[in-house]
């Protein structure tokens, strides 16, 4: 038997996260309640360790491991660093929220680490099987996280909806993959790409498979017309879990789109461009118009996510390296904005009180001018008002679409962004021009206050100096996609 090259070093961050997740499961059994905070410390250490390894072992060449089932390219490194950052910030923001609601348990942190592992696998998947296993690992952990507050009826309902629709989406994705396998005879991304390049064997079957894959991906991303689950799940989940679903997981879904549509099926670009145009238009319309009618801020942010996904798809459908780089930039900026936005909601929540209605933000300026200012930055950034990060992200995506010649689409996107500005600015109006209804003092741990401030101010600073982040995204895309 020939020597087997597993090349475990390439997958070291994944191995560390997996080992730490299992260690936390075991540690939880032996800890006294007073020492429970150690679980949190170890989770953060796991993410930090993985980040250090990813950064140190970074090279600009594409490395394969596990017989080509796993890839470590610059894109994977950049996206993984984004995932660690988003997960770590999520854990900082949610610590006091979950401990006040009796969810500060080993399982919460173990499941978060397992879903992080799933995301890392999705980012590094170079084979349909690997991608699918990563996706299932992520989804299964998320279903459990949503339902973890099990005595809460709305969480249970959200978990049920998420589970059923998520299973449907996985089924569609698998069906599409099986079609591709039937035609090309390959399951690995490079093999499929090569087979398609050497004369696509049968266009009809390929497009059928493509339709199912795109539908499955759209479900996971939350793009219209597959967006039904997004508002319900965002609304019903505990805010801590909503933050996690809304931020880090979108990076993984983004990576899956890159691997499947761009790397495996670039030959079919003309076919998926049309599908993405329909999805982008619908997402921007549904997201921005439906958000106006929301009174719950979590639902409003859910529709805002849908519209952001529409903008993200604009970056993809230009089918150029420039467009992919702008899409990478967009997803990372979106994650930063979402983190800060939900961070404020978590900050205003306290024991037995969820600050999830728009009215709860009324008069925030009188209660705390600083947090009102931070929320103002987040809302400006989400609306895309210069000089915030959101403006630059929208700008690059629109520029890429314009270069590819989608002028009508760009005009439509700008109109939708204008409509969207209405409900973001309404939040600002509530904070600055209304009298507070709620006078409770805002209490939060120091680390959360500090990170939240850095997070929101970062939106402003990165908006003015976006070049380094943009360069990193362009570098990752150029060195990863041939």
């Amino acid at each position: 038997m020939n020597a087997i090259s597993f090349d475990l070093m390439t997958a070291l961050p994944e191995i560390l996260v997996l080992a730490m997740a299992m260690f936390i499961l075991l540690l939880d059994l032996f800890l006294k309640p007073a020492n429970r905070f150690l679980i949190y410390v170890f989770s953060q250490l796991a993410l930090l360790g993985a980040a250090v390894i990813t950064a140190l072992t970074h090279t600009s060449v594409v490395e394969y491991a596990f017989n080509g089932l796993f890839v470590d390219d610059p894109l994977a490194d950049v996206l993984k660093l984004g995932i660690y950052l988003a997960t770590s910030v999520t854990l900082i923001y949610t610590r006091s929220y979950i401990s006040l609601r009796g969810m500060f348990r080993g399982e919460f942190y173990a499941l978060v680490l397992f879903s992080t592992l799933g995301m890392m696998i999705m980012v590094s998947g170079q084979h349909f099987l690997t991608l699918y296993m990563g996706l299932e690992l992520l989804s299964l952990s998320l279903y459990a996280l949503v339902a973890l507050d099990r005595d809460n009826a709305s969480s249970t309902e959200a978990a049920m909806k998420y589970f059923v629709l998520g299973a449907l989406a996985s089924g569609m994705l698998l069906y599409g993959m099986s079609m591709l396998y039937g035609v090309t005879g390959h399951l690995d991304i490079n093999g499929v790409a090569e087979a398609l390049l050497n004369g696509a064997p049968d266009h009809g079957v390929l497009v059928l498979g493509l339709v199912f894959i795109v539908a499955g991906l759209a479900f996971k991303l939350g793009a219209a017309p597959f967006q039904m689950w997004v508002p319900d799940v965002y609304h019903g989940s505990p805010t801590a879990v909503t933050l996690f679903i809304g931020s880090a997981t979108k990076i993984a879904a983004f990576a899956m789109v890159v691997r499947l549509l761009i790397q495996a099926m670039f030959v079919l670009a003309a076919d998926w461009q049309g599908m993405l145009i329909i999805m982008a238009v619908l997402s921007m319309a549904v997201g921005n118009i439906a958000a106006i009618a929301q009174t719950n801020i979590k639902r409003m942010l859910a529709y805002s996510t849908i519209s952001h996904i529409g903008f993200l798809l604009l970056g993809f459908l230009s089918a150029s390296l420039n467009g992919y780089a702008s899409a990478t930039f967009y997803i990372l900026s979106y994650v930063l904005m979402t983190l800060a936005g939900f961070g404020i909601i978590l900050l205003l929540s306290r024991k037995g009180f969820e600050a999830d209605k728009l009215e709860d933000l009324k008069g925030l300026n009188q209660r705390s001018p600083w947090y009102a200012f931070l929320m103002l930055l987040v809302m400006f950034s989400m609306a895309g008002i210069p000089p915030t990060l959101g403006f630059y992200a929208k700008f690059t995506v629109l520029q890429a679409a314009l270069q590819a010649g989608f002028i009508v689409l760009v005009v439509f996107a700008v109109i939708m962004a204008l409509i969207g500005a209405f409900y973001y600015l309404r939040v600002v109006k509530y904070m600055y021009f209304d009298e507070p209804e709620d006078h409770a003092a805002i209490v939060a741990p120091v680390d959360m206050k500090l990170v939240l401030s850095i997070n929101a101010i970062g939106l402003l600073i990165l908006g003015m100096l976006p070049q380094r982040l943009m360069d990193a995204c362009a570098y990752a895309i150029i060195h990863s996609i041939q």
Partner: protein
Amino acid sequence: MIFQDYVFYALAAILLFAGLRVITARNPVHAALFLVLAFFTAAGIWLLLEAEFLAIALVLVYVGAVMVLFLFVVMMLDINLDRLREGFWNALPVALPVGLLMAAEMVMILGSKHFSADMLNAPAPRPVGYSNTAEIGRQLYTDYLLPFELASVVLLVAIVAAIALTLRERKDSKFIDPAEQVKVKRADRLRIISMPAEKESVSAAEPAAENK
């Protein structure tokens, strides 16, 4: 037609019949038993394809373990069939065209010349003594080690999630934790609610006094 063809068509017919009955049987226990039949005939088709290991695993794992457990669950639960079936006729006008459309699309794709038998090369006959059990094992632990390990992590997550979601402390436990008792605060036991003063108390008190 050779003998194998007759066996295949017989098995396929039974499989289709069993599959249809799974979704049309009124009694859930019968539906589960038809599913067992479907698994069994599918295992037979796998044997025809010379995939002995998969055929045996299907019978052992699905028929032997999963379906037996499933039958127990179905028998334990009191499933209200009428509630499951309500809404069937309302959904039919939409569901039927969509279903037919999807079926037609699949027939057009799968029935086209691209999936006909002569497009696919016949597999080379296996040498004597070839063991597909060993071959599956070799593939699983070498080429496909990563998905295999990931599958085990997914199972671990399933276990963790199932325990986290269902494990509850017993309500009838008589165990007392003194530490918890000492920590009790007034707010946990006593709730002070503000009520408007009762103005009618005088008139309300009088009939009570008469009754005495």
